[in-house]
């Protein structure tokens, strides 16, 4: 069973050093456990500051300097946190790839697209430059970019956001990794372009049966493209389970509230807003991270942090998960 | 503005605290140096000329028998007064130009940018020499010249900050609210660029100290018998050959110390402003 797993994150806990000397270190990820099987797409959904990006950074070990990580990250059975410098480079170059939210900031503006695409595989010795460029061209055509040769000689600023995000996707796929981490790959894009880029990404991942860790704040989007879904709040995964289930039949009050505050495209309804604002892990009290905003919170919720419990194939971090199962509103399928 | 500085110091940055207090001490010396000096700075004693350090004269005497330590302490006043005036004048002028230019934008802004470019192209030392020729060598010539020379440096930095502010929606909100351009410029733009101006001015003070000393050294600025560090370096130059280095070297080190302190404080303040966003 474990051998089948591509990525296992177990009780990940990340602390960043204090901003100022003498300050408290800041917890940004409190307790995250996740796993991705080969060919599986896992979505992570949460509002800003919940620690989604930190989770992906922890996987590729790109956390800010001074970050303290505990817990385990197992990739194909070996610990990522224990990799030596050379192994880490190999791991990053061949095993995983990351697609970021803002392609413009994540591509060196002074180098051509061709350089950008080929660089990784050439440096890791996987291909010669010519071969890499050829492979890139082929991939570009696969993701629906006409005129691939010309694109390779262009600079990032000459491309639109949507096109640039496709370049990112090509970059990520070129070394044939096992796992793709996509951190809000479409947030900066228009809906039409988002649909397009998502389609490309989903199709490529499926064709190659790669693992995908898909980060977004859009529950509907995540539900549409992933197999299983984790809902994150303040550094904690509050609910995890099959995408369809989680997005239609939430078992955690936060998931439910999130769904209820989404305006609907088809009808005018009074939205149920969640009072207060989203918090980061280090702002949370000793109890349930969502307690302060939760309509169902009890004293216990405020005092004691709930451990994830398995309910109907889902992992839910809520003391009242059982009893609330029937209370929480369900979402009808359109 | 001092309050801003204090608040920044309190936020705990040891470098800033150390060098900030050093700057404070130097400024106090500049103000009260006369009272600390064991001798009158221009009291000559030909019989005790060019002496090395001794109990009476801790740093020795210069070629006219004046006490070097006293001149160093008293010299802080002119050495600081000039740069202070330069920095204040150029900051006020530079900030005014920057705000005006950033507010109007368009061709006004382009014109201002061109004029500043021309000012960059005229070397400061040329302006200083010209000023010395026009106003006569002395305290004011370099003050006037360097005030003009520093304007583009201040204006450029402040302008880009002001332009950034100018395009923030809050400024447009103020405009929509019917507030006058003057009100917006002074109450919002100026207030927001003020910390930057302070930081820039502190940095500029270090540079001005060096440049002001250089004009005195060249004989275009403060003139002997006035005690001033640049003058002292120049005065002591002929003694270097006979091994009596204390005048030039002590004045040189005083300048270096002052410039280091103000530069570090200025850089730290700028960095903090950058961090504050």
């Amino acid at each position: 069973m474990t051998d089948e797993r591509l990525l296992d994150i177990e009780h990940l806990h990340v602390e960043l050093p204090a901003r100022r000397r003498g300050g408290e270190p800041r917890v940004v990820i409190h307790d995250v456990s996740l796993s991705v099987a080969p060919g599986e797409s896992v979505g992570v959904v949460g509002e800003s500051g919940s620690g989604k990006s930190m989770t992906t950074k922890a996987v590729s070990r790109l956390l800010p300097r001074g970050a303290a990580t505990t817990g385990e990250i197992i990739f194909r059975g070996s610990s990522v946190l224990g990799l030596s410098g050379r192994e880490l480079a190999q791991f990053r170059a061949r095993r995983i790839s990351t697609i970021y939210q803002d392609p413009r900031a994540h591509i060196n503006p002074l180098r051509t697209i061709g350089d950008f695409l080929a660089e990784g595989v050439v440096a890791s010795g996987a291909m010669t430059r010519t071969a890499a460029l050829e492979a890139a061209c082929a991939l570009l055509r696969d993701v629906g970019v006409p005129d691939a040769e010309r694109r390779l000689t262009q600079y990032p600023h000459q491309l639109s956001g949507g096109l640039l995000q496709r370049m990112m996707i090509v970059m990520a796929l070129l070394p044939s990794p096992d796992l793709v981490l996509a951190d809000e790959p479409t947030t900066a894009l228009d809906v039409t372009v988002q649909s397009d880029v998502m389609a490309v990404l989903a199709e490529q991942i499926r064709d190659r049966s790669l693992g995908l860790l898909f980060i977004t704040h859009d529950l509907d989007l995540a539900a549409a493209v992933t197999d299983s879904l984790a809902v994150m709040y303040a550094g904690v995964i509050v609910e995890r389970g099959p995408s369809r289930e989680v997005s239609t039949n939430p078992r955690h009050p936060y998931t439910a509230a999130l769904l209820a505050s989404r305006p609907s495209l088809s009808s005018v309804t009074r939205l149920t807003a969640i009072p207060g604002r989203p918090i980061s892990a280090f702002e949370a009290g000793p109890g349930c991270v969502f307690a302060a905003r939760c309509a169902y919170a009890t004293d216990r919720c405020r005092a004691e942090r709930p451990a994830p419990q398995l309910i109907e194939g889902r992992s839910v971090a809520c003391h009242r998960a059982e009893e609330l199962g029937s209370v929480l509103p369900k979402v009808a399928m359109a | 503005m001092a309050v801003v500085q204090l608040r920044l110091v309190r936020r705990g940055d040891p470098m800033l605290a150390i060098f900030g207090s050093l700057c404070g001490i130097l400024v106090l010396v500049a103000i009260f140096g006369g009272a600390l000096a064991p001798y009158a700075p221009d009291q000559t004693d030909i019989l005790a000329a060019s002496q090395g350090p001794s109990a009476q004269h801790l740093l020795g005497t210069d070629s006219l028998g004046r006490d070097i330590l006293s001149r160093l302490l008293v010299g802080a006043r002119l050495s600081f007064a000039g740069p202070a005036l330069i920095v204040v004048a150029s900051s006020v002028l530079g900030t005014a130009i920057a705000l005006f230019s950033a507010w109007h934008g368009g061709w006004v802004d382009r014109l201002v940018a061109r004029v500043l470019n021309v000012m960059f192209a005229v070397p400061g030392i040329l302006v200083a020499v010209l000023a010395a020729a026009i106003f006569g060598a002395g305290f004011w010539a370099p003050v006037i010249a360097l005030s003009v020379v520093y304007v583009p440096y201040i204006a450029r930095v402040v302008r880009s900050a002001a332009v950034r502010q100018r395009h923030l929606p809050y400024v447009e909100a103020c405009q929509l609210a019917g507030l006058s351009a003057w009100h917006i410029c002074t109450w919002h733009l100026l207030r927001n660029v003020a910390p930057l101006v302070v930081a820039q001015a502190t940095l500029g003070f270090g540079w001005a100290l060096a440049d002001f000393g250089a004009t005195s050294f060249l004989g275009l600025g403060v003139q002997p018998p006035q005690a001033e560090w640049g003058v002292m370096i120049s005065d002591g130059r002929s003694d270097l050959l006979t091994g009596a280095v204390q005048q030039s070297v002590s004045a040189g080190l005083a300048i270096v110390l002052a410039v280091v302190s103000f530069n570090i404080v200025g850089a730290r303040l700028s960095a903090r402003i950058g961090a504050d966003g």
Partner: protein
Amino acid sequence: MNEPLLSVRSLRKVFGSRRSGDGLVAVDDVSFDLPQGGSLAIVGESGSGKTTTARIVAGLETATGGEILLDGRPIAGSRSRRGGHGIQMVFQDPFGSLDPRQKVGNAISEILAVRHTRAERRAQVLKLLSEVGLDERHAGEYPANLSGGQRQRVAIARALAQQPRVLILDEAVSALDVSVQAQVLNLLIDLRARLGISYLFVSHDLAVVRQVSDHCLVMQHGRVVEHGATGEVLDHPQDRYTRLLLDAVPRPGWTPRRRPSVSAV
């Protein structure tokens, strides 16, 4: 229907080279009416000219052509401040729309100073803040200490201080987290119901538009491609582009679709 509060006729905006005329046409022949107390949304993809239209109406940008009528009377086309005409605006970026070095209470009272005495002002500030769900404590805070949603409330309160008749909201909720966005949307809906202000609501989020507007305008490449009652447009889109837009919105059961070909950029 009685006379519209605000009418925009054949608005046109060209950016860039005015002499040679080869500038970028950001807004092209846009016309619409906004009735008293109504809410009109402008939707469209990025760069379609939504913001530009809104800014021209607010008087922050000068139109190249066309005219804007308030109560049937044209208002000066140039940079004259429309605030006095009862048009106010709330901006997208909650971080940039408040002076970082001004306490939020002062930001509001500064505007009231034009029309109110000092004594009236304080009470008025509190009233406005409570209107948007904030209280006295918030008045003494700097924007940096407020959350995005709170800032956006302050921005709304500030706009309300001018007793506007038209409130332009340019992506006013786009930068907010979903849970907070819902709060602000509710607030906006309530305010309109209570104060009878008209909204010109700019957004790219069709679901949001559905909640707050009566009518909507779909823009593409600076032109209006579809115009009608919001429900009608969203439920029965006529234009190909509107349909494309609608199809792209993720919702339960949705799958992303690849466009036949990517237009070369």
